[in-house]
C-alpha cells in the first residue's frame, strides 16, 4: 500500500544549527505534502505544506523541499531553537482516496543548548 516514512526516528542538534528532517513517500501520484509539529502533550500543529507543482516553499525559519524524481521531501529549520524540540510528522495526499492524508511515523527533534 501507499506509505509515507521518515528516515530517522530521532535527531539531535545544537542550538543555533540548522536541522534537516527527511521523509520519503511511495506513490508518485501523491500531489500534496504537509509537515506538522507536535509538542509534548499537545495535538499536531501545521508548519508548512507544498504542492507537487513546486520544488521549494519557505516559511518563517522553515523550508520544505520536494524532490519528485526520488519521491523525497525534507523540512529544514534554520537556527534551531529549544522551542523547536518536538516530534515532526510528514504527511502526503492519498492518491487513491482524496479525503485523507497518509502519515509518517514522526521524527523526534532534540535541541541541545
Amino acid at each position, binding site marked *: 500500500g501507499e506509505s509515507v516514512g521518515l528516515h530517522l526516528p530521532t535527531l539531535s542538534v545544537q542550538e543555533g544549527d540548522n536541522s534537516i528532517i527527511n521523509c520519503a513517500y511511495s506513490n508518485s501520484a501523491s500531489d500534496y505534502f504537509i509537515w506538522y509539529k507536535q509538542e509534548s502533550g499537545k*495535538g499536531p500543529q501545521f508548519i508548512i505544506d507544498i504542492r507537487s507543482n513546486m520544488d521549494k516553499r519557505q516559511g518563517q525559519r522553515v523550508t520544505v523541499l520536494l524532490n519528485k524524481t526520488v519521491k523525497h521531501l525534507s523540512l529544514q529549520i534554520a537556527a534551531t531553537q529549544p522551542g523547536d524540540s518536538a516530534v515532526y510528522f510528514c504527511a502526503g495526499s492519498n492518491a487513491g482516496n482524496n479525503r*485523507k492524508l497518509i502519515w509518517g*511515523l514522526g521524527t523526534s527533534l532534540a535541541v541541545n543548548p
Partner: protein
Amino acid sequence: DVKVTQSSRYLVKRTGEKVFLECVQDMDHENMFWYRQDPGLGLRLIYFSYDVKMKEKGDIPEGYSVSREKKERFSLILESASTNQTSMYLCASSLPVKYGYTFGSGTRLTVV
C-alpha cells in the same frame, strides 16, 4: 481563533465500559477524523467522516464506532473498553484535505 475542541484531556475508564469521546469544530469543515497515537506507531486512523451521517473505516476500526449527527460534531465510541485501547486519541477536521488538518489537543484515555 478557529479550533477543534475535544471534550476531555484525560479520561480513566474501567474495562467493559462504553466510552464516548466528543469532538467539536467551529470551522464548518466537511471532513473529520479520529486517530489514535501510540509510541513508535505514529498516527493511526480509526474512522473518518466526510459529511453528516457519513463515515468510512480507517486502518484500525475494530472495537470502535462513530457518530456524526451534526456537521460540527464527531463522536468516537468505544463499545466495550479494553486495556489495549489505552492511548492518546486525536480528533482532526479539514476542508478538502489539500488544505491540511486542524487537530484538537487530544484525549489521553486510560482503561483499567
